[in-house]
């Protein structure tokens, strides 16, 4: 039985172009740009200088801070600059620029030797520079260290991939199902959880069947079939769907004994622990109606997106919009020099004639945003308040609980930029809280 949640919306999935395509290795670009802050938390300090020669997997940035993750060179070659470079969220961040020599010589990797202990796993995961690969890019080792007094009973693997167009997790799970389960077992052992769940949406039946076959007979691991309703892959919504538990407002999943990891991250955990492989590449989907040959690619971190688009046959039609991430939550880019970071799940392209630029109208209170909101907010009222810069009112109406899934703006018939209003209000409130604390 597949349960249908009362929130959310069925989006056009538009995954058919790439869901059946094997993951290919992307060609090497001549230059990679590795940002020193690819995660939520403290940025890294560079460990190399201009002129240094680096090898694949060599650590080039790290910090003492706990909530952070080191970055590694994804190609072998010479560091030609350590300077601010464009970042996908707009603006520039300190980055290490490496000219690839094409030899791809790597440092020696070694997996965890002997018996796996939680401490060894956390250490291996941190050294590999793992962050959440679903998009939020939260350092993975931090999630594996529940603080004193919090116990985790259930680990959930997020295999929903609810964003339209994107199929990288789909392919990755299908092609590395054994590593997915190995990763899940490692996580469960590390946080001492009894139960493991793998939540997969019903549009990936091939993955569901394969994983169900592999876990047959195991009592503590269960595949949960989920309705293909957006945003099932949002962490808190997934926990509610799988465990019937609600994470308290402002709290973390571990407050209700749950831990969620993205499917791609789980596979990377297995690789980091067993082989000692640092995160220097990831799988992503280059797709959309604006690209000639959509593909699932294994890409070196730091590759400029322009190189990937070229590798997929270039633009189809006049270029209109280039989005990093999925079409619901991704970031539109102004330049093709922006590099892939650890959290990039896809590059979605739209031709100019499919980019809608319309002025928005007044809210006519149809209530679609309220019925769609997975957090049960009232986006129409919040939007009206933010429009008049009444941020206090927006805060009272729980704007800080917004997960920015994009549904309210998606369904709005008046095309109101509701997500923009939410982000604006949240930014203002965060800044004010910082000032007062």
């Amino acid at each position, binding site marked *: 039985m597949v349960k249908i949640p009362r929130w959310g919306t069925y989006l056009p999935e538009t995954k058919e172009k790439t869901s059946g395509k094997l993951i290919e290795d992307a060609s090497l670009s001549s230059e990679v740009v590795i940002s020193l802050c690819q995660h939520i938390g403290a940025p890294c300090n560079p460990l190399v200088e201009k002129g240094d020669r680096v090898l694949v997997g060599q650590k080039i940035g790290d910090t003492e801070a706990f909530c952070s993750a080191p970055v590694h060179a994804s190609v072998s070659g010479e560091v030609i600059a350590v300077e601010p470079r464009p970042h996908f969220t707009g603006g520039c961040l300190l980055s290490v620029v490496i000219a690839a020599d094409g030899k791809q010589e790597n440092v020696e990797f070694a997996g965890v030797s002997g018996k796996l202990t939680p401490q060894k796993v956390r250490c291996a995961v941190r050294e590999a520079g793992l962050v959440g690969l679903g998009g939020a890019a939260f350092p993975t080792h931090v999630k594996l260290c529940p603080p004193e007094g919090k116990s985790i009973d259930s680990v959930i693997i997020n295999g929903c991939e609810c964003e339209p167009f994107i199929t990288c997790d789909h392919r990755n799970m299908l092609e590395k199902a054994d590593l997915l389960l190995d990763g899940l077992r490692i996580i469960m052992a590390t946080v001492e959880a009894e139960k493991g769940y793998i939540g997969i949406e019903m549009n990936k039946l091939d993955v569901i069947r394969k994983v169900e076959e592999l876990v047959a007979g195991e009592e503590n691991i269960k595949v949960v079939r989920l309705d293909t309703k957006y945003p099932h892959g949002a962490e808190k919504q997934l926990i509610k769907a799988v465990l019937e538990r609600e994470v308290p407002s402002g709290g973390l999943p571990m407050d209700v004994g749950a831990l969620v990891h993205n499917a791609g991250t789980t596979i990377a955990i297995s690789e980091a622990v067993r082989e000692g492989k640092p995160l220097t590449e990831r799988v992503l989907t280059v797709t959309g109606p604006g690209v000639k040959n959509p593909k699932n690619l294994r890409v070196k971190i730091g590759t400029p997106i322009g190189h990937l688009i070229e590798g997929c046959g270039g633009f189809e039609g006049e270029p209109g919009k280039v989005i990093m991430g999925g079409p619901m939550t991704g970031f539109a880019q102004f330049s093709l020099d922006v590099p892939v970071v650890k959290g990039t799940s896809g590059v979605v392209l739209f031709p100019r004639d499919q980019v809608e630029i319309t002025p928005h109208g007044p809210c006519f209170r149809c209530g679609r945003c309220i019925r769609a909101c997975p957090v*049960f907010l*009232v986006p129409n009222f919040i939007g009206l308040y933010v429009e008049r810069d009444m941020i206090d009112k927006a805060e009272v109406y729980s704007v800080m609980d917004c997960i920015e899934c994009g549904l309210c703006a998606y369904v*709005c018939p008046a095309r109101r930029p509701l*997500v923009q209003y939410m*982000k604006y209000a949240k930014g203002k409130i965060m800044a004010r809280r910082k000032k007062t604390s």
Partner: protein
Amino acid sequence: MSEPLELVVSVSPHIRAKEIVSGIIGWVILTLLPVTLMSVYVFGLYAVKIIILSVGTTVLTEAAIQKLRKIPITIGDGSAALTGLLLALILPPRVPWWIPVIGGLVAITLGKQVFGGLGYNVFNPALVGRAVLMVSWAEPMAQSWLSPLGRLDAVSTATPLALMKQARAGLAQFHSAYYYKPLLFTNPGGCLGEVSALLLLVGATILLYKRIIEWRIPAGFLSTVFVLSLFTKTDPFFQVLAGGLLLGAFFMATDYVTSPVTPRGTLIFGIGCGFITVLLRCFSNVPEGVTCAILFMNAFTPLIDRYTMPRVYGKGKRREKAPL
């Protein structure tokens, strides 16, 4: 570095649902067309005259006011035309020509534009128009009916609902079951939009199926009328079919702008409308109560919204009043 490209940059989401405001209003107009055409069939030129004058006035008034306010003219979204059509459908067939004209003027100016236009009005504009007409020109509004079952040339002062009222006062004989068939198919004794309950239901079914209207308001409205009719010892089927109830419940109480937006709120709104309708139909000195019931509940919409805010994910108790 690659050569610069002209790319569009905007905040997520980058895809949008197909529905737009004018499309939604277009569907409502489209689903009103069957009953509109039936009114033309039954009332002939009387109906044509009222519809043209009413729609023409609302559209021109909206354009004129927007021109005066120096804001973009938005008659293309169809909302003014819809107001005009709804107003025409709640007028008696034999009213003089100036009734729909004044009604349209009042609906758009007092009903909508003084509040700031689409999305900001408190009361349903078409019903504001009708309410003003009923109060100011009671005679033409109350006595321009055609005979309930009779010939087109016979002018009557009684609709089926008025007859029921007289019967309750012991003034006349009345068999409600006698009216089922005319009310469903062709009922000449009523407003333009009351000619055929069946065609209204056809339109309403399409709106519900396309999820342009939600089920809660009409369900709350109609079921309340049905149940309360049993208590007031009137025929519940007759009560639901007669007068402007179906038109009101499916096409006017469901007006987005003037009804609550929260799921629980819409149900409360519908039940309130039904309650007041029965109250007025059975215990007031006017035969019909749908107009007043919806306008009355419109006034409560902000209050209902405030008290029925959904419980936010991860936040404590079930019912939480939104702060003022």
